[in-house]
């Protein structure tokens, strides 16, 4: 094993732990992270596998294939995160609105009644 492989694998294991901790009680998310890091570790240990996949798909090198997949992965991830932000923004708005409505008050004196 090369030094780079050791560094990568240590990094992946650490990231796996973090992701598993961050996704408590969500079994699907956890399985997704496990599968993802398992794949990463396998490809690190046997780089020729990504070369084979690249040859199969007609991409020059294995590293190129991984780069292309990474672009798609980051893009989809960002869109999902943005959606999550919008959802949270909506929840915060609703919270602020309910507080405003609960604490609404009439100041001063009423000049007339309808």
């Amino acid at each position: 094993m090369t030094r780079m492989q050791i560094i990568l694998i240590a990094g992946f294991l650490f990231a796996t732990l973090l992701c598993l901790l961050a996704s408590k009680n969500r079994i699907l998310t956890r399985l997704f992270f496990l599968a993802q890091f398992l794949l990463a570790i396998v490809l690190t240990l046997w780089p020729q596998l990504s070369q084979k996949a690249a040859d199969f798909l007609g991409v020059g090198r294995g590293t190129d294939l991984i780069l292309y997949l990474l672009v798609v992965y980051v893009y989809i991830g960002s869109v999902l995160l943005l959606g999550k932000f919008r959802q949270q923004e909506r929840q915060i708005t609703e919270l602020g609105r309910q507080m405003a409505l609960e604490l609404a008050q009439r100041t001063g004196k009423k000049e007339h009644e309808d």
Partner: protein
Amino acid sequence: MSNKTYIIIPCYNEVESVLRQTVQELLDLRYEPIMVDDGSQIPLREMLSDMPLHILRHPINLGQGAALQTGMEYAKRLGAEHVLHFDADGQHRAEDIERFITTLDEGYDVVLGSRFLRHEDSGSLPTRKRLLLQAARLVNLIFTGVWLTDAHNGFRALNRKALHAIDLQENRMAHATEILSQIRHAKLKIKEIPTLINYSEYSLRKGQKISNSLNIILDLILRKLL
């Protein structure tokens, strides 16, 4: 006022003297203002505690669209028949409100103020602003299919039907376009009437910056996507 009309005024860090003048003009005409303090640094209820107002306060700044929607939710609870959207900065004229309500009574669900129906009104617009508004009209048409003579004019009146049909999700300035698409969706009857806007130095400073237009468009696109 024979029926229940409420004037919704979103406020964010307004200058007290300007705000007092805006509100006093409404009170003099016996309107009931609903002030929505959108998380100003100095709470509105400290500033205007001596005036007879409904005051609501967002705990944090959420944006003008959110403030309008909060005001409308509150007006619904009060059993409003008509609501008006009115700017805090003194650019709208209280004496115009009556014409909005008369137009609603003619059978329209939403009445929108326009600066481009009378030559003397549009003449008072700064040139840069006029060009920007023409572009905004086009954006409105593309996103909503509604072709108006003005865009982002914050002076609007809604009857009870419209009040219950509109639910603004765009917290910031894109709500002005969003409201049009909801009007179209709910098949509300709309009419534009001429309004004169008083452009003071204060209202121009508080108003939309040109650089924010792109932001508004992006907000709208995001909303379509997500």
